[in-house]
């Protein structure tokens, strides 16, 4: 039981990180039909921005802010303008190819211009363990969970309670109608790219103390984000959150209780099962086929 609680908490922490990545992924898909195959690399990169800022002498808190700012500029603004905008007119598939090339580019750049070795990344809190009934839970897991929950709540407030957020939702649900109703659709699409950049930067800062900053981190994180988005429902922010949490918990529990060798396989099997039996995802609406 004790180990179950431990696994559950660390699973929830991992799941919360997956959820952040999956939410950004879903937002981009909803507003601009961008399937970002570089999403995993987007999470890998901000950690290197932070490390680079610390290398030139910035304290950790400042480096974190610099990392988030750089991520907004590079993974938000530049990504939108340089990669996405010129490709939108060709439809979904060519843009997918561009983001695949981008993921290769980012991965190789991190390897060649920073390091091919895994880099230690400062933890947000000193790693101590909290005893809690019989279970031992690390403060780090709890903090990750707390920050992720705060981020998700803030995101929900932004999307549901503010004018901009509602306009973004309108854009996601029906861009043509939103435009008629006077929503500046292009600007809203642009905002979702910025939002995605912030989410991946937060995820990066949360995940890197656990996994270390390594150029290959994006591969597993990217696949986790796709799977979380599909499990929860490709067209739902709530779905992506649910999918991420399910995935994280399941990943940890199955590795401990079933097979650690096939740890990576369980999410994939669930993915295939969801696509077979509930293709719209657990919380998703059925989408009309768009051609």
């Amino acid at each position, binding site marked *: 039981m004790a180990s179950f609680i431990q696994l559950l908490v660390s699973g929830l922490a991992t799941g919360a990180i997956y959820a952040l990545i999956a939410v950004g992924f879903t937002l981009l898909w909803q507003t601009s039909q961008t*399937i970002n195959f570089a999403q995993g690399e987007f999470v890998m990169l901000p950690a290197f921005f932070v490390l680079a800022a610390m290398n030139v002498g910035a304290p950790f808190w400042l480096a974190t802010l610099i990392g988030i700012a750089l991520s907004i500029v590079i993974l938000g603004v530049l990504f939108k303008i340089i*990669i996405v905008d*010129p*490709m939108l007119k*060709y439809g*979904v*598939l*060519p843009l*997918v*190819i*561009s983001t*695949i*090339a*981008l993921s*290769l*580019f980012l991965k*190789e*750049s991190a*390897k*060649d211009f920073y390091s091919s070795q895994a880099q230690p990344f400062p933890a947000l809190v000193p790693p101590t363990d909290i005893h809690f009934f019989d279970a031992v839970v690390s403060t780090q897991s709890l903090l990750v969970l707390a920050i992720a929950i705060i981020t998700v709540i803030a995101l929900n407030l932004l999307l549901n309670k503010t004018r901009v957020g509602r306009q973004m939702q309108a854009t996601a649900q029906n861009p043509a109608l939103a435009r008629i109703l006077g929503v500046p659709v292009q600007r809203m699409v642009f905002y979702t790219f910025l939002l995605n950049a912030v989410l991946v930067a937060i995820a990066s800062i949360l995940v890197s103390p656990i996994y270390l900053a390594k150029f290959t981190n994006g*591969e597993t994180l990217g*696949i986790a984000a*796709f*799977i979380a988005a*599909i499990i929860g429902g490709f067209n739902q922010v709530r779905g992506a959150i649910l999918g991420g949490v399910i995935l994280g918990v399941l990943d940890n529990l199955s590795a401990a209780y079933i097979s650690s*060798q*096939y740890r*990576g*396989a369980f999410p*994939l*099997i669930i*993915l*295939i099962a969801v*696509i*077979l039996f509930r*293709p719209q995802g657990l919380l998703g609406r059925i*989408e009309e*086929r768009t*051609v």
Partner: protein
Amino acid sequence: MTRAGVIAVVICAVAAIVAPFFLKPFGIFLISTWVVLTIAAIGLNLTLGYAGQISLAQGAFVGIGAYTVALLTPLGVPFFVAFLAAGLLCFAIGWVLGYPALRVQHHYLAFVTLAFTTLVFLVLRNEEWLTNGIYGITGTARPALFGWKTGGARDFYFLCLGMLALLSFATWWMLRSPWGRAFIALRENPIRALSLGLDTRRYTLMAFAIGSSLGGLSGALYAPLVQFIEPNSFALGLSLNLLLMVIVGGSGYFFGPFVGALVAVLLPEWLRVTHGYYLIVYATAIMIMMPFCPSGLLGLAERAGRALAGSRALKKTSMHTEGAGP
């Protein structure tokens, strides 16, 4: 095909036949790799270029084909039987995999195949009793055909080239048949194809399954070519690479995979001067190419050809009008 096209193909075919007589062993290895990868890319081109579906599993099918041959031939199964078995197995797996994915939304095949590639990698790595895990399998024998032993690099290259010729002819013939025309109809206008009574889902699935079996056949040649296979060679990287090959060459063009595979094989050698930065250069080039010419190098060539023909026609008409003047 235009006359210029036929001439170009004949010249390339002759070049492919005489090339190994002028190359060192490493050069022969490179062009053999090109031939083998081209077969896999032709398969992916059916899925991507004709049926308009992104598959990220072609590398996994190459792996399944390679392991099929590497595991069957030591048991005494003749190479060509194992070769056909690899193709059939991949066809069957492709069918089973594509069936659920194509039942739903159009971009789901990309995710299902992505998951499949990772699953295949895990099985190849973990099931050591069968695949020898990360230590891989060495020394897959090269076959003999009617007493012609293909153990030498050049002989094996000709075997691969023969297979490529056979398979690309079969693909060409299939695309010319009413059946293949349905594939093209899928690409050009899926809704219209559907309204004309084509079972688009069935044809898309067929294109994917046939494409997958070509991946398996390519793997069946890959194992005896490199003589050492291990799970990492067939991880997601290979699938992405094959996808980029089809795109760079020109998806939906019959000869696109040939060009794309050539670029993917030769470019790393030519870009040796950039040291480790080859992949950065390659990725940048693709990102630059996509917005200007999403139809790849052959699309670019076609456009250039048309522009040339256009300016020539323009000149002709202007001369004509001059001639018609007073």
